[in-house]
């Protein structure tokens, strides 16, 4: 090889070396990313859905990110993050936060449809070391929770839907068990600034103050219901108000409460509506701080500014397909069959076909 050729090769080699970082920055994986933002209580099922979907579509990389449900939507509507699919533990947040909020420099709303696709129920998680665990049942749970030697965990109602739904369940219990003292016994003297209940026109409104701070060790508060499970494992609390799916996904015992109060059934939607939780403050500019008693229904949507709407539609179609529903069932997350929507005309055609 002559010297000139060698030098040309050397020069090309140097240039190639210099270009490698730039090429790496620009290209990365050859797979198409599909950013999916989900509620924290849906993290376990979404991992299985991601695995199966990627097996069927090896050229797609489902990128899951988890937050509380309100934060899931804010990532797109207020923090300008791009996402292909949003999944929340309360479907009503989608119309509340996305239908009237327009995409920057556009008249188009962030979303104009949702699918309700799964349910859940609220009950009590506990372990085999929980005090009175061998005797607790649907008839005596509220009595056991008020015993002085029992410690109870509840998620912060200001931050976690599991927390304000636990308040709803305990208020509904007063009618169901015909005992008007249940809520007061459970929570009446537990907070530095009290959680109060007022009644008007047949609606019992639970008022949550801006500061929610337990004033004794009998009630333990955490910002996220999942952290309560660690306290259960450590024996630091005896019971925790929890979603059934989360308790069972983490291997805890779970006391199912009657469907009249566990917020699981559409059959009792009217009676659930007799309670509501009102935050006496506004934490997010875009969220009305009032939550009506309703069945727990998970919802999803594809934002109108999704970077990959066609692939997103494929993913959603998979999620509500027979195969996707089986994955939900395996993860103790009862699917709604078929999934329901509020605006069929706006749905991508392939999703609409699956609802018929």
């Amino acid at each position, binding site marked *: 090889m002559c*010297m*000139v050729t060698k030098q040309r090769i050397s*020069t090309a080699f140097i240039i190639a070396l210099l270009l490698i970082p730039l090429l790496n920055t620009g290209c990365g994986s050859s797979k198409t990313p599909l950013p999916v933002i989900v509620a924290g209580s849906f993290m376990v099922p979404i991992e299985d859905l991601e695995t199966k979907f990627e097996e069927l579509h090896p050229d797609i990389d489902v990128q899951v990110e988890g937050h509380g449900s309100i934060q899931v939507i804010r990532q797109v509507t207020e923090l300008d993050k791009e996402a292909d699919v949003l999944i929340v533990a309360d479907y009503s947040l989608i119309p509340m936060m996305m239908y009237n909020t327009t995409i920057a420099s556009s008249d188009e709303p962030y979303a104009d449809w949702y699918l309700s696709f799964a349910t859940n129920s609220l009950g009590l998680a506990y372990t085999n070391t929980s005090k009175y665990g061998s005797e607790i049942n649907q008839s005596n749970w509220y009595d056991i929770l008020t015993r002085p030697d029992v410690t109870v965990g509840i998620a912060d109602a200001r931050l976690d839907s599991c927390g304000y739904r636990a308040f709803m369940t305990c208020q509904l219990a007063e009618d169901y068990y015909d005992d008007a003292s249940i809520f007061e016994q459970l929570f009446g003297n537990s907070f530095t600034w009290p959680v109060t209940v007022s009644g008007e026109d047949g609606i019992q409104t639970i008022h949550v103050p801006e*500061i929610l701070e337990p004033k004794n060790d009998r009630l333990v508060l955490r910002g996220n219901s*999942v952290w309560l499970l660690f306290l259960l494992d*450590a024996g630091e609390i005896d019971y925790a108000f929890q979603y059934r799916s989360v308790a069972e996904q983490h291997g805890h015992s779970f006391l199912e409460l009657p469907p009249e109060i566990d917020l699981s059934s559409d059959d009792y939607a009217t009676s659930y509506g007799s309670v509501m939780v009102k935050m006496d403050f506004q934490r997010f500019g875009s969220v009305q701080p009032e939550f009506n008693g309703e069945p727990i229904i998970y919802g999803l949507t594809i934002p109108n500014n999704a970077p990959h709407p066609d692939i997103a539609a494929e993913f959603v179609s998979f999620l509500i397909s027979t195969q996707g529903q089986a994955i939900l069932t395996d993860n103790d997350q009862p699917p709604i069959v078929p999934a329901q929507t509020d605006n069929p005309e706006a749905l991508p055609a392939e999703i609409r076909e699956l609802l018929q």
Partner: protein
Amino acid sequence: MRLKFYRHNRFALFIIAISLLFITITTVACGNSAGNAYKDIDWQLTLIGDEQIVLDFDEILAMPAYSGRSGFFTSVGVVNGPFDIKGVPLLDLCDLVGGVNSSEFVRISAVDNYSMVFSYNQLHGEFITYNTSLHEVDNDGLVLVLMYELDGEPLTEDVGSPLRIAIIGDNVLTEGMYWVKWINKIEILNFD
């Protein structure tokens, strides 16, 4: 032959020189020292207590700083940090507008319309703390600060530039919801 060799060597050296220049410019632009980067920050923080005042970023920077190491985790358990953190204690800022007493609390607001409240006990460091395995651990005292520096650098936009709440302890983690980004208002309130 020798002339061509020389020309190619010169070409290679030229490419290397251009590359070094590019790297230098990029480093200066992206990785500047904290001191210089603070120079261009145009930010105002409103404090509301017995009176209302507005502080520029420079005025915050001039206050006595508190440093320590801590981190946070997200609602789904993703651990961030611990980091080396520097900022101004929140109580020092509250003292500028009359201070906080035990019947009051503080609301922190951000430009994205997010807000978080801190009770009197929290203002004095009462938080649940965790290790990096997310097990609850005791702490030796915590200080709530308005952070402006993380790992020796000003905060980036994603991290919460220029001001973010941090809870400083000894390598402990706290829940991420408290670490409010992009702060522009601090209010001292009571329930009356």
